[in-house]
């Protein structure tokens, strides 16, 4: 092995250790955060007995889960029953390796260690474990594998509740993957690349993509909720209907693996939203290295820039994780028909239409000779905002999610749909 390659391997190992430690510890702390946030939203205190302010609660939970009895239903398929939690867990964790979490760090070193030999590295070090060129395609591909874990868990438990949960999960994940994938096509059209680093660079040149592609962002967010099985899309584990859905028969650490997978998926979705639509590690009005419109400050690439951008990424990530919890403790679960109708009859056609719209705008902009990233983004922002207003103020009245009372009224022809006197 050449010294350069050894340097690469060394740095990769360090980054892996860093990212996976942060993600695993973070996931443990997210369970505490979820319980705290839910408590505050319900005027309660939340866990506060273990450690200062309940900070060691995840450790106590982990210890409990390791010491608990592992149950094996006698009728379960033993191989798949054990394999399923791992299948849910591994893809969820893998994804944290491809999201850039800070600005590249210029790093040069040339050291010789006693046994291992010479390590050399030159040039900027991307702050991501694997800066894969296939970018979000990799995320979509790997995150789809998670459904195998859930479906197999449901099937191999040999319990009707688990099976129903697994079936629902498969149907839901596959339905919403369509909308999820399609909602990223406008990003691809606008940035011309699927790699996260390029997408972040384009957002630094223009606007954060949430503005030019607000409809895409909305569809991605909703589908992301559905993909992580979070409320209001938690039908696979609907307690009131299915005991605990696909993990009804699991106990101890195997149950915990599903739990960790769920929270790791939340982290991934939040990181995706942050990176694709909110500029990733980009700090508003601050340019790092490259020129940027509206930059008030310029940071030279270096440890400080990397640290600050890392903090910016972390802040945005935490906001979206909080947002996921916020939604969970606000909205009730959808009915199954509402879930399917939302996915197939609303999100998918809307996204297809939006792709067409973005294509037309890009084509017209090119014909009109619009140059540069920023003017293009501004034009698209205008078009998208009009589009979003049309969606949320006109189409979203009885078409997206319909309550049972209004459905009944409409079916019976009792009264034509009216506007409520109160304004939402």
């Amino acid at each position, binding site marked *: 092995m050449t010294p350069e390659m050894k340097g690469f391997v060394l740095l990769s190992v360090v980054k892996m250790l860093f990212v996976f430690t942060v993600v695993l510890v973070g996931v443990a702390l997210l369970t505490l955060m979820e319980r705290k946030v839910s408590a505050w939203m319900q005027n309660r205190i939340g866990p506060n007995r273990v450690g200062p302010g309940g900070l060691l609660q995840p450790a106590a939970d982990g210890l409990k889960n390791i010491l608990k009895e592992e149950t094996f239903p006698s009728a379960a398929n033993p191989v798949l029953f054990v394999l399923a939690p791992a299948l849910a867990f591994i893809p969820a964790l893998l994804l944290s390796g491809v999201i850039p979490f800070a600005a590249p760090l210029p790093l040069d070193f040339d050291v010789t260690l006693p046994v291992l030999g010479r390590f050399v590295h030159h040039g900027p070090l991307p702050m991501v474990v694997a800066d894969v060129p296939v970018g979000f395609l990799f995320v979509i591909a790997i995150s789809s594998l998670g459904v195998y874990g859930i479906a197999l868990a449901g099937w191999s438990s040999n319990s009707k509740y688990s099976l129903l949960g697994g079936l629902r999960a498969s149907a839901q994940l596959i339905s919403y993957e369509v909308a999820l994938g399609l909602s990223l096509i406008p990003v691809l059209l606008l940035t011309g690349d699927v790699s996260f680093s390029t997408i972040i660079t384009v957002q630094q040149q223009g606007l954060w993509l949430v503005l030019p592609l607000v409809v895409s962002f909305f569809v991605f967010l909703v589908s992301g909720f559905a993909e992580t099985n979070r409320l209001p899309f938690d039908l696979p584990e609907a307690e009131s209907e299915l005991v605990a859905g696909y993990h009804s028969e699991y106990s101890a650490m195997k149950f915990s693996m599903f739990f960790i997978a769920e929270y790791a998926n939340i982290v991934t979705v939040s990181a995706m939203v942050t990176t694709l639509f909110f500029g990733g590690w980009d700090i508003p009005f601050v340019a790092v290295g490259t020129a940027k419109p509206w930059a008030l400050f310029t940071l030279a690439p270096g440890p400080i820039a990397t640290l600050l951008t890392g903090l910016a990424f972390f802040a945005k990530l935490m906001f979206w994780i909080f947002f996921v919890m916020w939604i969970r403790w606000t909205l009730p679960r959808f009915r199954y028909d509402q879930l399917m109708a939302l996915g197939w009859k609303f999100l998918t056609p809307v996204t297809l239409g939006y792709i067409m719209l973005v294509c037309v705008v890009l084509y017209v902009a090119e014909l009109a000779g619009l140059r540069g990233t920023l003017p293009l983004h501004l034009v698209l922002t205008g078009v998208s905002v009009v589009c979003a207003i049309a969606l949320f103020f006109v189409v*979203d009245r009885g078409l997206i999610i319909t309550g049972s009372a209004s459905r009944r009224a409409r079916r019976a022809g009792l009264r034509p749909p009216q506007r409520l006197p109160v304004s*939402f």
Partner: protein
Amino acid sequence: MAIGVKVLKRPEQEVSYVRAALKGMALTFKHMFEKSVTMQYPEEKSTDGEHGGGQWSLSPRWRGTHRMLTDEQGRSKCVACGLCPQICPANCIKLVPGEDEEGNRYPLIYEIDEFRCVFCGYCQEVCPEEAIHVGVHYENAEYSRGRFVYDLERLSAQTHPVSSLWDPTDPRGE
């Protein structure tokens, strides 16, 4: 007075889901900054309204585990009339009457099985001597089921305040 039934007015018209969801999110967010209503139980406890005050109080009509009142000589006030085992709907009072040389009746055995008791308070209501009472008390944990059969000695040794039963002629307790 007719019983008021709360009828929820559900929207029969079309409402926007997204905007309704945003409204709900504003509500939950507001709640995050409100004062918590949790009682930190083992540290903070409910006291009975008359004797403790504080933020948490039990109703004076709370019916908890029993207490047998005693007279000045420390004997129980019970005259073993047998009304309480008679009225007890759960049949949890065991009473064996005895009589001393002066002809006064007293309980030889008086036991209440607190597991069978439904805490209706009829025993207190029916007692002519105001001897047996239900108490304003909770926290009754024991290590064995047998310990939940309270005998006369234990009933007399209880010190917690007793409940004032609801009087139909004075519904507000004034």
